[in-house]
């Protein structure tokens, strides 16, 4: 098994708070890995440290290449795509402009995007700030799918979405997973069970468990690790 991503002793300190306290894990190439944990344990910060949006110390290795010294845009150009928590789409720009900004490849893959989210094509001249939460999430995911990537980092894509939209996002992730490696932060356990092959659990700034989604069926495990009761949500 090849590793897509290896984090070794990654530390992040922001405004005096030691948020990541030596994070270590490996991500298997070509599959979806779920990153789980309670709120505030450092999952989002872990993703942001990988792309260099927070100052980080330690080793981050992408397919054999050390990327911890790279600036954010260089990490992205090394083949990483990032879908942040809360979407972070550009509200004053139109849908088309949001997507255009994300273009990196010579031939951006608009076919897949339009196939997955036909709504975005209809609304391409609408300001992204006026879209619904679900539509904004589509824009955020679409931005990541336009280019060929080796690693896709997705932070809570279903947060606050209606069940029907959760299904759409899940479908998009499954399609993306056919072509790339995904590290997925997600609170929706059924979704994780459906798409992830491996899981990593964090607590208080460190990784406390490596395993498989099957373990999530164990109510005791879920409660102990994630502070949720039961495997169903």
């Amino acid at each position, binding site marked *: 098994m090849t590793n897509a991503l290896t984090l070794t002793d990654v530390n992040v300190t922001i405004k005096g708070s030691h948020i990541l306290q030596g994070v270590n894990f490996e991500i298997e190439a070509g599959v979806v890995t779920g990153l789980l944990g309670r709120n505030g344990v450092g999952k989002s910060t872990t993703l942001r440290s990988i792309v260099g949006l927070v100052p980080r110390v330690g080793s981050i290795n992408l397919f054999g290449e050390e990327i911890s010294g790279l600036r954010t*845009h260089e990490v992205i150009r090394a083949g990483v795509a990032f879908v942040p928590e809360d979407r972070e789409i550009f509200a004053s*720009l139109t849908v088309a402009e949001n997507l255009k900004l994300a273009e*990196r490849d010579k031939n951006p893959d608009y076919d897949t995007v339009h196939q997955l989210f036909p709504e975005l094509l209809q609304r391409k001249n609408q300001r992204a700030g006026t879209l619904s939460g679900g539509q904004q999430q589509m824009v955020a995911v679409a931005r990541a799918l336009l280019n060929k990537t080796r690693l896709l980092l997705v932070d809570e894509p279903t947060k606050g979405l209606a069940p029907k939209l959760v299904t759409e996002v899940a479908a998009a992730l499954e399609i993306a997973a056919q072509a790339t490696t995904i590290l997925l932060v997600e609170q929706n356990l059924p979704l994780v069970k459906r798409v992830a092959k491996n899981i990593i659990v964090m607590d208080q700034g460190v990784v406390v468990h490596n395993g498989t989604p099957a373990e999530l069926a164990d109510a005791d495990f879920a409660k102990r690790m994630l502070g949720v009761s039961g495997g169903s949500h």
Partner: protein
Amino acid sequence: MEIFITLFITGVGLGALYFLVASGLSLIYGLMGVLNFAHGAFLTAGAYAAWYFTTEVRADGSLTSYAISLVLSGLVGAIFAVATEQLLIKHLYDRHIDQALVTVGLGLVAVSAYLGWFGSDPLIALPPTQLYDVVQIGDAFVGIDRFLYITVAGLVLLANFLMLRYTRIGLVIRAGVENRAMVTALGIDVRKAFTFVFFIGGFAAGLGGALATTYASGVGPTLGDAFLIYAFITVVIGGMGSIPGTAIAAVIVGTTQVLVNYYVQGLGDFVVVLLLAVVLLTRPQGLLGKVAH
């Protein structure tokens, strides 16, 4: 009524000069979070360049020489600005307070250098005589130079608009004003846009310097600083990072200042500051600014 028309157009002309300084300040602040206290020095550099060109190089008093001096002063302002960004600002990435402090120091150094080179007395620059003409609007007479300021500022506004709306770098700037971190997270080297906004901001300020020399009939070491304070006020009233907001605010500030100053000597400058206070108390993000995140 005639006086009102004359004053109003003069006010818009002054606002046009404020806009030339404020547009760069606004974009630089909006995109990079840098409050540029050296912006007045860019203006003064452009003003001295225009003075030098029209009195030493081509002192023929022709409109052509004047037009060349405008472009030249813009370029001088732009080069000064880009050098500032490359040599000072860039090395203090994400240290916003230090960036502002360095520009304060640079402003001080620049004013002292101008003082050492050109002396403290304003140097007189005589624009082409055509600019002294007046045009009649109804019963009012208005200096033709006012229309020049308004036209140049209008062209800069249009160029800004086209650049922001239709070019890739404009798209990056608009997105960066909203959320710089996310722009880099799409694989875009936002620092190139930093250098670019300093270039266009410096160009507009230098151009403003040449025109301010005409407006004030000369250039002294602190010409830029005199404009800088009102340009700051314009930027805050208009909303940081918003070019249309800056344009509207520039007209409001310029006309208010000129009109009130005419009726009560000196009170105009004071009223403009009160205007700023009122805007901030009712709308902290400015007229067209976005709520900071």
